[in-house]
């Protein structure tokens, strides 16, 4: 059974040079470009089976993050369709849902709720979230006083407790110190064993090889490789 279906998806960004009405009118009158188009994704089709772990590879600007954002619903495709079975949670840049003026505790609730957890779920998992992040002592301190490592730990900890059916991970395995990284990887492997579907974006090819079974390589918005992970990593290393 497929967990994620992406069919003939294209996404074009219109890079606008101005945000003001006046300038837009003036520029249009002068026939100057108000913006230009940038094709971030072009006829991409992927089917991801339930329980699969897929690594999404490619150089900067190849469209990896755009694809993740389409799957998570933050953006919608211009062409083609995206379908997802079950609940999606994205770790698209950890900490996006954390607010510096709130305490760690308040942020656990706010961020958990943003990621789709119900209040009862958060109540039940609260202590496990705090344990995982290893910052009990600071849980009632405002997040703006946290070190960047503590900040990321808390954010990651909330995200891995959301129990989504499809889990999107964007460049977050570089969180914290070595022991914490290992803990994160173990947690991701746990999620795999629970039969969840994972899509992982990372530039750390070793990590991708360790976690994923299948690799996708994007080049300038096109899907060029869809094979087992070793082949995909080799394709990227050869460049």
């Amino acid at each position, binding site marked *: 059974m497929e967990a994620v279906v992406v069919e003939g998806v294209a996404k074009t*960004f219109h890079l606008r040079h101005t*945000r*003001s*009405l*006046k300038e*837009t009118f003036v520029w249009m009158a002068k026939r100057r470009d108000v913006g230009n188009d940038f094709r971030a994704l072009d006829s991409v089709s992927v089917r991801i089976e339930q329980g699969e772990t897929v690594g999404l590879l490619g150089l900067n600007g190849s469209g990896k993050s755009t694809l993740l*954002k*389409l*799957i*998570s*619903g*933050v*953006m*919608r495709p211009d062409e083609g*369709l*995206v*379908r*997802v*079975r*079950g609940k*999606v949670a*994205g770790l*698209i*840049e950890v900490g*996006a*849902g954390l*607010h510096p*003026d*709130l305490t760690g505790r*308040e942020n656990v*609730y*706010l961020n958990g*709720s*943003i*990621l789709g957890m*119900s*209040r009862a779920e958060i109540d039940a998992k609260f202590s496990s979230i705090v344990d995982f992040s290893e910052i009990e002592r600071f849980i009632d301190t405002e997040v703006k006083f946290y070190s960047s490592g503590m900040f990321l730990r808390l954010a990651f900890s909330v995200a891995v407790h959301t129990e989504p059916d499809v889990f999107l991970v964007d460049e977050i395995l570089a969180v914290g110190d070595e022991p914490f990284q290992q803990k994160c990887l173990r947690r991701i492997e746990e999620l795999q064993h629970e039969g969840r579907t994972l899509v992982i974006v990372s530039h750390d090819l070793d990590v991708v090889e360790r976690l994923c079974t299948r690799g996708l390589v994007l080049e300038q918005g096109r899907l060029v490789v869809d094979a087992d992970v070793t082949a995909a990593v080799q394709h990227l290393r050869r460049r």
Partner: protein
Amino acid sequence: MDPGRGGGLLDVVRRRHLLRLLVKKELRVRYWGSSLGLLWSYVKPAVQFVVFYFALGVFLQLNRTIEDYPIYLFSGVVLINFFTEAFGNATRSVVVNAPLVKKIYLPRELFPVASLVVAIIHFVPQLVVLVVAALATGWRPAPVDVGYAVLGLGIVGAFALGLGLLFAALNVFFRDFENIVDLLLLVATWVSPVLYPWTAVREVVGDGWLLQLYLSNPLTLGVELFHRAFWVPGLTQPAELAPLQLPMLVGGLLVLVVLVLGQVVFARSEGRFAQEL
């Protein structure tokens, strides 16, 4: 499931808990580091009332032409304050929450609705000041008066939410709309009978359709209903009440149209928020 397609305002009802947390966040952030906290929202309207009382009522001697002028004035002012905050903050709500909108999918209607809820919370202290002042001048409300107040607040709140949704969406594409909204809000105080009585308008435009149009403005409706709730019951000589039957119909319809239009425009442009911010 089709990711990124929401159920509009219905989603907000479904995610009440998140709405509550967003509202709490908003209040916490606004009063962080101030020792009086929410008390400030009592101090401000109280000072505003005292200033109005002396400047307009005593010095400009409006107390003589309109009985209980401070109450008349203040019941309109608090409603306009509410509208200004709800509409203004709703317009900015999506742009202000850009980091969230760009990274994680959640029903984006939550942001304008949270602005409305925060405005309601800030409205309560002003209402308290108004009620205390009205009681002091002999106001004894009947149940129907409470009904007028609720109806007035409902009309203005729904109007602010509809406009807020519409302009929040437009503001994502062009930040000029923030300034347009500020301008509209400036006008709002003067196109409804807050500082002057509605009869002053009738003297100029007569009894015809222009007056009906003036009264059909949802803000005018709200303000007039507030007058009936808080000002009229305390009067010793009965005041002439504005005819509100037809305007209620037209204004109510207008609010509904604005609400639907706002929701439709918001839902249709929502898919492009993440890339435009």
